[in-house]
């Protein structure tokens, strides 16, 4: 299978972050990111932490209606520490 099929299949069945996918498939991170980016552009993939398709805002000043949404940006914010791995 190609990197394209491997990455999408892995994300769809096992889930995970780009780093986890790259680690499981032993693929370079830039290649995994390129696949995910292209898939998102085609509309077959959603990236949690990028806001929903309507372009809702991200960051600490989210409107209350976005509370609990899994697409809310949970990326690095002011002072947040990332857990290794």
């Amino acid at each position: 299978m190609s990197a394209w099929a491997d990455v999408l299949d892995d994300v769809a069945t096992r889930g995970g972050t780009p780093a986890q996918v790259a680690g499981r498939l032993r693929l370079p991170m830039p290649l995994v990111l390129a696949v995910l980016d292209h898939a998102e552009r085609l509309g077959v993939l959603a990236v949690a932490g990028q806001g929903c398709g309507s372009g809702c805002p991200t960051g600490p000043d989210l409107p209350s209606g976005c509370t609990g949404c899994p697409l809310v940006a949970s990326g690095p914010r002011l002072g947040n520490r990332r857990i290794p791995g």
Partner: protein
Amino acid sequence: MSCHGTAPLPLPVLAPGAAAPTRVLLVGGPNVGKSTLFNALTGARQHTTNAPGTTVELATGSWRTAVAGGRPAVQRAVVDLPGTYSLLARSADEQVSADAVRELAQHAGAQAGTPGVVVLVLDATALARSLYLLAQVAETGVPVVVALTMLDLAAATGSPTSHVPPETLAAVLEGVVGVPVVPVEARNRADDGVLELARAVDAVAAHPRQVTDLNLAAPAPSCGCATAGDPPAPAPARSGMVGADLTLELAHAEALFAWVEQAVARVTAALTPDAAPGDRPATSASPRRSFSDRVDGVLLNPWAGIPVFLAVVWVLFELTTRVAAPLIDLIDRLVSGPVAGGLTALLGAVGLGDTWIQGFLVDGLLAGIGTVLTFVPVIAVMFAALGVLEDSGYLARAAFVADRAMRSLGLDGRALLPLIVGFGCNLPAFAATRTLPHARQRLLTGLLIPLTSCSARLTVYILLAGAFFPRHAGTVIFGMYVLSVLLVLGAGLLLRRTAFRDVHAGPLILVLPPYQHPHLRTLGMSVRMRVGAFVVGAGKLIVATMLVVWVLMALPASGQHTIGDVPIKESVYGEIAAGIAPVLAPAGFGNEHAAAALMTGFVAKEVVVGSFAQSFAVDEPGDPSVAGSLGDRLRDTFDESSGGHGGAAALAFMVFVLAYTPCVAVLAEQRRLFGWRPTASALGVQLVVAWALAVAVFQVGSRL
């Protein structure tokens, strides 16, 4: 922006009689050094203009290199295009770059004597990503030269490219891809790299070269344009891809990335000859299980994931009710007791006691503000708890696990995300349906969204669960959300097997964020902003609606009373409520307070609580300083209307609030997206279903 017949990009003005210069487009990702290179090539001979038909600014300039032997300098017209990672554009800037490349490919081929070349500025530290863009540009047929940048940074990385000289890397790349690759460090314009780039551009303009082995499986209708004779496409999703177009694009993507992976492998093999052929290159990702892997091993497990999610949600509601509910009661007693008493005394002292003005201010305005204030503890605790879940990255895991459960029932996993948004607020959930590629999927999802229990309904649950089931309030509220999920699943399955059999289920492919520790200061800021927005936004609506309700309560239905001095039962409000109450009697809450509260719930569900507060305050004012709580009055009223089964009636009321129509803002959005007929049909069905469910809950519950 159309991909056909695009207006050509603006070019520098030339001296009369001058030959048409080679057009050069600088294409590449953001922050790869395009603009630095552009400045080095053009110097002061540049100016800024807008791309035709857009507000995107472009820098254009003249790139001149001297020729030995006294011949005129070679001139090229250069355009610095906005950074883009892909020719599959998703922003106005990227669309400008993609259109410019395709336009150059069309015109350069069609018009001899006006050669054009794309200088693709690629990042040496991100080989795969760079080759991906090269493949996309090359398959348009435009002549390409690669300018390799970030060479100093590449030397500092641990990649296979880090230990080789720039010239070696460029030579290896050129051997693999088949087009000229020139290492450039454009800080010094006299650098040979820039002169070598000029020679490569002139050579390719005269004799274009093809990228090696780039025979992709399917053409790429990346512009999303229909071809002649195609049926009209349905409303496009974000990418504009539907049906057969998407299938072609997916096949094309597979071939494209197969080429990229092969090219990366060949470059790596050439630079690291000790690697075994056919192996995927060693990566910097650690093969050992990290903390995230171990946690995800549980949270993403199909059997453990759902129970963990349910447990987390239960804890969330327990926390909210145990921490917030006592504060609600305190605020309610303060506002309806001392504060109302003080205001009444003040108005009496200025001669406005026992007038309609006192009624308007105390029972209308103050009651409205008090209702809004009682929401603050609930919303604050809920937002804080959800903020922790959001920031930690857990919620995306919950969505992934829920997606698998939905797909096992034959429902579309892609519909899951708008539905999850609906549990916060139904209105943005409709906006989130735009991610679904087909109109029928969007309609199906739009019909299910109102069955998700939004946070406004939570205020009603907290009031009633706290009043009737104080020791199990969290569990009761948890049960309401489970019921909401069951209603969504049930309705979704029914619709998929009847009116929406043509809708095909697809998986939700969701890339998860990494775990991280939430930061308390950021969390506090977020909660403060969200609570403030809720109080101001919803607060205005609630206070305004309660003032309208007070006016309706103050208007006599007949001529026997004066304005402001009429019993509720004989007011306009009371007459309307009395007309509806008998319909609700089989559900155990056939009283005017409940009927009227449900009417105001059409405006906003948060107003239901305020409507109760107001109708009890106006109907049974008593002595404000010793007034019973809202909960006490609710118990008395529901016990009376249900024949002593107040708990069952309260449960039935909550079920009715869950299932009946959404607020007017949501109805308006439904009508705007799907039209009057589906909206009106859904409205009727929801009212019937809500009534039937409420009656069933009361009839069964009152017999247990």
